[in-house]
């Protein structure tokens, strides 16, 4: 039983970490009023850049930084289109996704299948020796340790700092935020830089944290799952932690069932998070009552 619990917990942390970074990325951008369906592409660019940088320099820390930077730079293409050029957010996001899929395949082509040491595991003394929790929670790499604190930090930033409140104001009512002396466009650019950094980290945690290799389209739809998880979390960073790790736990649970030959289709279990998200939205009631930022998806046209 402890062995079972250990692999369940371990798997949840493993699959949940990249999802949490991705969910936080989408959350920041949506709180500023911008839906980014291109997160999948941002993650892929982060994953491939992080991998190549780590392979070239031998430093996983440099690789992680490069991944975050690449995510932010790549997301600026999207930012320019939707903020400066007021382009359709959904179409721009899908285009960004396609671009990321292609560009990461091109950059990563010479590296497919090669292995790197990746991010080292940093067992925390004493805690790592705990029976079940130790290996699952306290013998991880730095990116994994940082994931939950990042969510807490984001919660604090969005809830209690001047910058965070301004960002949310822009997402709810850009005209009012403008009248209160904020530049909605500047705030949205900043939000998308932060989202890009987080999306890049999500990719890094896949390529240099977990897999330690590069494979074409290795994000496999996690960018879209993050969009669903933001809804599931009702746009709240702490609920995003719960959502990401619940989802991670579900993934690890079905792997366990499969390994034990339990005849439950993993595909049916995989549907649960999506159906649950829909249910949360539908039960949450009318569009007005649920927690979506009021100006999500709209474009700030300047004041009349």
């Amino acid at each position, binding site marked *: 039983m402890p062995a079972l619990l250990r692999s369940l917990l371990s798997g949840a942390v493993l699959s949940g970490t990249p999802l949490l970074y991705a969910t936080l990325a989408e959350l920041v951008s949506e709180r500023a009023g911008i*839906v980014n*369906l291109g997160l999948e592409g941002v993650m892929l660019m982060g994953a491939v850049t992080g991998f190549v940088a780590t392979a070239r320099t031998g430093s996983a820390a440099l690789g992680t930084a490069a991944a975050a930077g690449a995510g932010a730079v790549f997301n600026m*293409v999207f930012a*320019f*289109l939707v903020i400066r*050029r*007021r*382009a*359709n957010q*959904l*179409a*721009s996001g*899908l*285009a*960004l*996704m*396609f*671009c990321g*899929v*292609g*560009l990461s*395949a*091109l*950059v990563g*082509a010479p590296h497919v299948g090669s292995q790197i040491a990746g991010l080292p595991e940093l067992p925390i003394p004493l805690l790592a020796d705990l029976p079940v929790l130790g290996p699952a929670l306290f013998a991880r790499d730095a990116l994994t340790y940082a994931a939950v604190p990042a969510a807490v930090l984001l919660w604090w930033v969005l809830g209690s700092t001047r910058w965070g409140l301004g960002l949310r104001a822009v997402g709810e009512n850009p005209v009012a935020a403008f009248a209160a002396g904020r530049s909605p466009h500047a705030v949205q650019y900043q939000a998308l830089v932060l989202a890009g950094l987080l999306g890049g980290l999500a990719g890094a945690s896949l390529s240099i944290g977990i897999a330690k290799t590069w494979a*074409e*389209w290795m994000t496999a*739809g996690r960018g*879209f*799952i993050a*969009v*669903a998880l933001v*809804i599931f979390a009702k746009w709240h960073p702490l609920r995003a932690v719960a959502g990401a790790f619940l989802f991670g736990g579900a993934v690890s649970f079905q792997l366990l069932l499969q390994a034990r030959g339990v005849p439950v*289709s993993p*595909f*049916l279990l*995989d*549907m649960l998070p*999506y*159906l649950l*998200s*829909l249910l949360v*939205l*539908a039960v949450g*009631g*009318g*569009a*007005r009552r649920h927690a979506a930022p009021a100006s999500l*998806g709209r474009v700030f046209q300047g004041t009349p």
Partner: protein
Amino acid sequence: MVLRSGTLGLLGRSSGVIALALAVFGALLLLSGKNPLRAYVDIAAGTLASPYGLSETVVKMIPLILTAVAVAVPGRIWLINVGGEGQLFIGALCATWGALSLGGLPAGLLLPAMAALGFLGGGLWAGAAGWLRARGWVSETISTLLLNYVAILLVNFVVFGPWKDPEGVNYPQTAEFPPAAILPALGTTRVHLGLAFALAALVVFGFVVARTRWGLELRAIGGNAEAARRAGLPVGRYVVLLMFLGGGLAGLAGMAEVSAIQGRLRPSLSPGYGYTGFLVSWMAGGHPAGILAASFLLAVITAGGDILQMSQGVPGSVVNILMAVILFVVLGWKVTAR
């Protein structure tokens, strides 16, 4: 300004967009040590210059046109259907059920039954999202997006589980369809009867929108839903109906793919036709002629991926960059054109 409104201006601007995109993509290929001119010559030769290549481009246009109209129909009243991919999968799933369980029927009955099942399946899948929207519960953008995953997982479930081909050893696929369940193709090409579905969908859509009372009502709802509601138009019913019709067309694309191209249900049914169809419809602004042109362009690019992979040794998905750059230019350009 004068040029902008004319056909010549549109043509000039489109070629400008494409030229710019080709230049950017070429520069990227050059940077990664490939010869962009060779790549373009290969793509053009493989998709446009031979009857076979051209026919393969048309094969790719069929699902793109159908999924694009699936976006354009609800788009008439500003509904955003990002669920073409899922609706296509459900259409394929329902058509497969028809092919496998009504296998004894002659083609003249079986094919219409499969088409109806595909349409109905995709339509109900999207109609559910429309219903959630009409009740004011969930935005159709979010629900159609989420339902894509459920649909793809559902197809995976049946091909790995209950419908798995007993003779297929370990391949996740259903049994092969009986010959009566295969849509007839044109001569020796793979161009199939689905082309007629696609063109009919375009023509009917264009006619209804431009020429009928119904199209006028849609324009009224699209213009101002609240005013239309007060004028007594059943807005909620229209929301469900248009989502149903759109989803049905995407479902029909799934039926055509599974029947004519695959001959059995596989999870690798679509390389993202639903998403590409969304972009086609968006590029065309929902206009039928534009959809035809944009689907041709994106079909050439999609087909170009396989060609690049074979001739240049780059991953096939690299052409996604070319598609994305074209879209970036179009997206960035639109505002100034307004």
